């Protein structure tokens, strides 16, 4: 990843010296280059706030994941960055300019969630049309190879399976060889293997110096792919940082054990946030693992099958959004 960042810096420094064509924001005194940003952006739909004064930056060469439950504002944020929506307040900048000009989109590609794609056109034709919008598109063969569509060029879109259709949408996002890629829930509906292939392709793009912003509610996906995760809930970014840092924000631990204590008895133990059943055992979520363990062992001497593990991203995410929801209702 660092290599990708260095490459894109070098490439752009020399491009800068020869031609000041492309508008950019340089941060002085830092090697990070911001390629897209929301600055104090609010967006309402009628009376409903979708985004509240959000500050968010995407830096060159990184994979950023916008992680949040449905309705949190992820898709709104992406649509603002794509220039499909105008903010009610604040500034949206992509490569230093307002993203509402279609010609500037020749540096970006987007994969959105869509219900219907023209079914009577062939895969090759879809790619040909979208490639024509860009100045330096990739060759159709490269695009189809990258999206795993090699033998499907002449197939009509309507004759494709669900996973193949997703891959065509991915192909349309990358066909213009864009520097900045927006992927809105890119692996929905894909089986495990297809998901892994797409992840590999995304990582390959970033190694070539591209930047990726993806939205997902698959926590595993954010954990696996992203250099940086921004957790968004009800229109606000409530946490931001590398996946490890987000996980660390909730010092939660998971205690799994087989115990004769009932759920209500377990809930009486101070420090336990959640009690879940997991087949023959219970899974307890707590921020004070040691104190809870002491209590557990005192109350149930026959406790067995004990496992203590760090909270994954899922638990951090749930804890963060729960806390945020509580804050909002106070």
């Amino acid at each position, binding site marked *: 990843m660092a290599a990708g960042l260095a490459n894109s810096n070098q490439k752009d420094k020399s491009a*800068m010296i020869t031609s*000041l*064509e*492309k*508008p*950019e*924001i*340089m*941060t*002085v*005194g*830092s090697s*990070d280059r*911001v390629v897209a940003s929301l600055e104090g952006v609010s967006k309402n*739909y*009628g009376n*409903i706030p*979708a985004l509240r004064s959000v500050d968010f930056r995407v830096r060159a060469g990184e994979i950023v994941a916008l992680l949040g439950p*449905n*309705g949190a504002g*992820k*898709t*709104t944020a992406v*649509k603002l960055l*794509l*220039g*499909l929506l*105008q903010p009610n307040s604040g500034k949206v900048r992509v490569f*230093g*300019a307002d993203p509402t000009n*279609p*010609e*500037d*989109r*020749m*540096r970006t*590609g*987007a994969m*959105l*969630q*869509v*219900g*219907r*794609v*023209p079914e*009577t*056109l062939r895969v090759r*034709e879809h790619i*040909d*049309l*979208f490639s*024509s*919008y*860009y*100045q330096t598109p990739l060759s159709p063969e490269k695009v189809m190879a990258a999206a795993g569509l090699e033998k499907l060029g002449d197939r*009509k879109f309507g004759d494709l399976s669900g996973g193949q259709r997703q891959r065509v*949408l991915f192909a*349309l996002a990358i066909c*213009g060889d864009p520097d900045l890629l*927006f992927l809105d829930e890119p692996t929905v509906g894909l089986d495990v293997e297809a998901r892994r292939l797409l992840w590999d392709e995304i990582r390959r793009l970033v190694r070539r110096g591209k930047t990726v912003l993806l939205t997902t509610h698959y926590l595993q996906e954010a954990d696996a792919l992203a250099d940086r995760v921004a957790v968004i809930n009800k229109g606000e970014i409530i946490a931001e940082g590398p996946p490890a840092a987000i996980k660390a924000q909730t010092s939660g631990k998971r205690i799994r054990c087989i115990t004769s204590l009932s759920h209500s008895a377990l809930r009486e133990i101070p420090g336990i946030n959640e009690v879940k059943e997991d087949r023959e055992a219970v899974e307890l979520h707590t921020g004070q693992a040691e104190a809870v363990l002491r209590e557990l062992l005192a109350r149930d001497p026959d406790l067995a099958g004990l496992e203590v593990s760090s909270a994954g991203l899922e638990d951090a995410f749930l804890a963060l959004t729960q806390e945020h929801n509580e804050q909002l209702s106070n």
Partner: protein
Amino acid sequence: MSAATVTLATTQVQRTPRHTAVIYLKEAKYEFLKYLRLRVYTLSVLSFPIMFYVLFGLVLNANQSIAGTRVSVYLIPSYGTFGIIAASLFATAAGLASDRGLGWLEVKRASPMPPFAYFAAKCFTSVVFSTIVVLSLFVLGIAFGGVRMPVATFAKLLVTLVAGSIPFSAMGLALGYFTGPNSAPPTINLIYLPMSFCSGLWVPFMFLPKIVQKIALVLPPYHVSQLALGVVGGGQHEPAITHWEVLAAFTMICLGVARIGFQRDQEKMYG
């Protein structure tokens, strides 16, 4: 993280005119192919005018006249008008409603596609299919209906009908912004079938009840068919300019409505 930021002088990335032209051509080409391969569209757009013409113009009523014009001649402008309306409305309104409602239009707007190319491609498709419908009627009329007219008349009739399809492309864009993917086709039918009847496209205008004739005056199909009939020497013989004025006004209103729909779309609810 508040590092100082310096914004470089911005020069917009520009497309060459040639590149833009290529985009428009490809957009039009694929839009046309899309509909050409859609049997639902081609069959319904082509088959009805042809069926009606064969039945009412060639098989029945052969060698009869309507107010001095041979039936096989008179019905070409009438059913031709009917055909171009269907060709335009279904290519524009149904397609737009579907693309909007199911998110495809958003994908295109998120791309570098110049937005106007999308609408131009739809209008191009309407024009091409309108031409195909009218030419089909010409062929049938010449081959089986004894229709003999100077080439210039045929050409003028074709141009009149195809130009007359433009108001309906505009109407289709307006409709497409205010209907959903499932409601668009039935809504189109509910509007254009009665409209066509009341304009005298099936029962010739002079045989319609007086009250219907009054309604016809505000219906665009009436004006297009009158212009077309005028080319072959039939119709109510009103000055052509009044018809064109009504059609131009109608087109403007539809484009205005489409524009309102376009802006309203920006504020739709998303997740």
